[in-house]
C-alpha cells in the first residue's frame, strides 16, 4: 500500500495522510479538483475497482463539508478512503458517475441528507428516504432536531408527566433540606 501512496504522491498533491483504525484502511486527503483524476488512476492502475460508499461529514465550525469516497480492492483486500473538502456555503461538486455509475445513488442520498448538489447526476433530486421533506437537510448540524421532534411528534407520552429528574432527586430526601 505504501508504494501505491508513493506513486500517487508523485502524480498528485496529497494534502494529508492518515492511518485508518484497522490495518487495511488508509485515508488520503486530496484537492477537490484532482479527485476525478485520483479516482480514475486508482481504478485503472491500482486495482481499486469497487466504490464501496460515498459519504459526507458536516464540519460546521470550519464551514466545510467533507466528501469521502471509499474504495475497495478485491485483489489486495484493502480499503482506501479519498476525502476532499468543499465550501459549506456553496455545497456543490461534480458527480463521479462517469467513473463509478453506482455513485448515482450515494450522491442522491447525500443530496437529500446534506444538501450537496452533484452536478451531472440526473436523479439526485428524487426522494431517497424522506417523504415530503420541507426542512433544511436533516443531517446538517444546524438542523434543530429538538424543534423538529416537538413539531412532528409533540408530547406523544403525555400521560407520563415530564419530570425534572435532577429536581426530583434533590427533593426526594427531606423537607428540611432547603431552609
Amino acid at each position, binding site marked *: 500500500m505504501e508504494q501505491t501512496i508513493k506513486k500517487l504522491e508523485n502524480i498528485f498533491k496529497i494534502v494529508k495522510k492518515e492511518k485508518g483504525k484497522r490495518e487495511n484502511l488508509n485515508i488520503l486527503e486530496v484537492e477537490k479538483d484532482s479527485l476525478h483524476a485520483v479516482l480514475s488512476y486508482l481504478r485503472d492502475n491500482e486495482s481499486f475497482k469497487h466504490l464501496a460508499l460515498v459519504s459526507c461529514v458536516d464540519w460546521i465550525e470550519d464551514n466545510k463539508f467533507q466528501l469521502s469516497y471509499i474504495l475497495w480492492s478485491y485483489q489486495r483486500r484493502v480499503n482506501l478512503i479519498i476525502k476532499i473538502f468543499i465550501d459549506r456555503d456553496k455545497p456543490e461538486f461534480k458527480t463521479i458517475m462517469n467513473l463509478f455509475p453506482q455513485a448515482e445513488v450515494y450522491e442522491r442520498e447525500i443530496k437529500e441528507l446534506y444538501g450537496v448538489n452533484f452536478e451531472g447526476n440526473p436523479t439526485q433530486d428524487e426522494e431517497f428516504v424522506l417523504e415530503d421533506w420541507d426542512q433544511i437537510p436533516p443531517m446538517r448540524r444546524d438542523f434543530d432536531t429538538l424543534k423538529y*421532534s416537538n413539531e412532528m411528534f409533540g408530547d*406523544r407520552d403525555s400521560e407520563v408527566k415530564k419530570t425534572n*429528574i435532577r429536581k426530583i*432527586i*434533590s427533593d426526594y*430526601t427531606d423537607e428540611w*433540606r432547603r431552609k
Partner: protein
Amino acid sequence: MDIKGILKPLTAWKRAFKPPHTIEVPNKVTREGAERYRGFHVNDMDKCIGCGTCAAICENEAIKMIPINDPDKGNSGYRPRIDYGRCCWCALCVDICPTGSLEMTNEYTWVRETGDEFIFTPGIDIIGHEDKKDKGFKKDDKLNFLHLERVPMRELDPKERTQTFAEAVLGYSEEEARAEAERCVGCGLCISGCPDRMHIPDYIRAIAEGNDQKSLNIIYENNPLPEMCGKVCTRRCEFECSLGHLGEPVAIRWLKRYVVEQFDDLKKYVDAKPEPLNGKKVGIIGAGPAGLTAAYYLRLKGYETEIFEAAPKAGGMTFLGIPKYRFPIPSLDKQVELIESVGVKINYNSPVDSKKFKKIYDKYDAVFIATGAPKGMSMRIDGEDHPKVLAAIDFLKTINLGGTVDIGKEVVVVGGGNVAIDAVRVSKRLGANSYIAYRRRVVDMPADEEEIEATEAEGIPIYTQIIPLRVEDGPKGKVKLIYGKAKMVQEKEGARPRPVLIEGKEYEYVVDSIIVAIGQRPDLDFIPEDIRNKLEMEKRIIKVDKRQMTNIDKVFAGGDLANWTADAISAIADGLRAVKGIELYLSSKK
C-alpha cells in the same frame, strides 16, 4: 385532477406477468445487524440507578424518567422511558450512562401496528430484543465521556508525616479542583448519602464554573463547619456517587475543602445576616458540630443562642478527638469565628453539672443537649483497669489539649474504627512503635478506607482476627495483652461474618501501653436525676423524634448522644433538624 396518479398503476401492471424482482429470504433467516449497530435500547435494571444522566444529555428530549420503585440511597427509583419518534439513535445516552446499564441491541427490525407503541421503558417493557444486546452498541472504553479517574490528592510523604503533626493531606490547587469538579455529572444521588443533605451538585457546579464564593455560600446553607467536613468527613456522599459504579467517585470532600480553604476570613464572604432577636432564648449544652449548627442557624433565624462548653475551645470531638494532622486548629478557629460573629455566645470552660442544668432549663425557652459520646467503652475483660490501659478518646483528648501521655515505646491499639486509626497514628507520631489489633479482617474495619491506606503507608501494622482475653502485668513495668486468634464464621447468608475465638491457644503482646478504641458512649451524669429517670432512652443513646425532641418538655438532643451513626455530619444534620424542631416548638407555644 392528477393525471399521473391515474396512470401510475398501469406501470405496475406492466410487470404483472413477469417473475418478481424480489426473492424470499433463504431459509427465512434474517441477516444480523452489524456489531455495534445502534438498535433499540436495553437497560439493566439491576445496574440502573435512575440518575437521569441519559435524559439530561438527550438533545431531542426523547427520554423521560418515570417512577418505578421507591427511592433508596443512591437510587432515585426512576427509570428512563424512550420515545422512538424523537430518538435519533445518536447513543449519547449510552455513552454517558454512569453505570453502563444502558446499552443497545443490534436488532434493526421491530414491527408494530401503531407508532404509539414505539415508546417504552427498556428493562420494564420487554420487546423481545433483549437477548441481542451482546453485539449492539456499547460504551467505548477509549472514547469515554465520563472521567472515571479522580484528580489525585497530594499528600506529605508517609515517612515525613510520621515525624510531625503537620497536615498530611495538602489540598487541591485551583486547577486541580476545577478539573475534579468538571467530572461531576450533576445527578445529585450523592445527596441521598449525606445525612445533612448538602446541596452537593450545586456547589460542585459553582466550582467548575470558577465561582468559589457562590459555592461557599451554597455550602453554608446547611453546614456551618464545612472546612472540618472538607477534611475529616466520613463522606457518605461519595459512596453514592454515580461515577463510583464504573470508576472513582467525585472527590466531594476534597472539593468542599478546597472551596473553604480559598477564604481566610469567612465573615467577609459568607452571606450570613442574622434576623433581629425575637425574644426567645435557646440554651445549648456542648459546642460540638450539633451544638454549633443548632446555635448558628437558630441565631440566623432570630433566636438568642448561648452555648455551654466544658473545653477551652469549640468543636467537640472534632477538636478534642481528631488529631491535628487531619484537622488543624486554625481551620477550626476560622469557622467558629464566623459562628460567633453572627451573635452566638459560647461560654468556654463551662462544664454543666446537674445544678447548672436546672438553671439552664429554667432560664431558656428550649434546651438542646449535644454533649456527644465522650466515654470510652470497655473491653469487658479481666485486668482492664490496669493503669497502662488507656481509653483512646482520653489519650487523644489529652494530646489535643496540649498535654503529654507517657505511652512508652511500644503500643497496641485495640479496635478497627477511625478512632483506633487516629490513636495508632498519633502514637507513631509520638515516637512509639505502634500497631493495631482488630477482631475482624481489614475489609471489615469500620474505619475510612483512605485512613486505613494512610496508616499502612506510614508503616503501621494492622493485625487482625485478634480477640483480647485479659490484661496482665508484664516484665519490667510493661503490660501484657493476652489474646486468642479468631476464625471468621458466616452464620447467616448476607450477614457480616462473626469472629469466633479459636479455643486452646493463647498469644500475648508485651507492650508499654494498651489503647482501647472500641467505641464510645454518652455520659449523661450531668442531667439531674429526676429528669434523667424520666428521659426515654434507646439502649445507650437518647430517644428523639424526627425533630430531635426528647420526651422531656423543652429538651431537644442531637449528635453522638442521640444517633447511632455517630459522625460529625450526622451531628450537623441533627443540629439542623433541631433548629426546625425548636422553631416549631417555640412558635406553637407563644
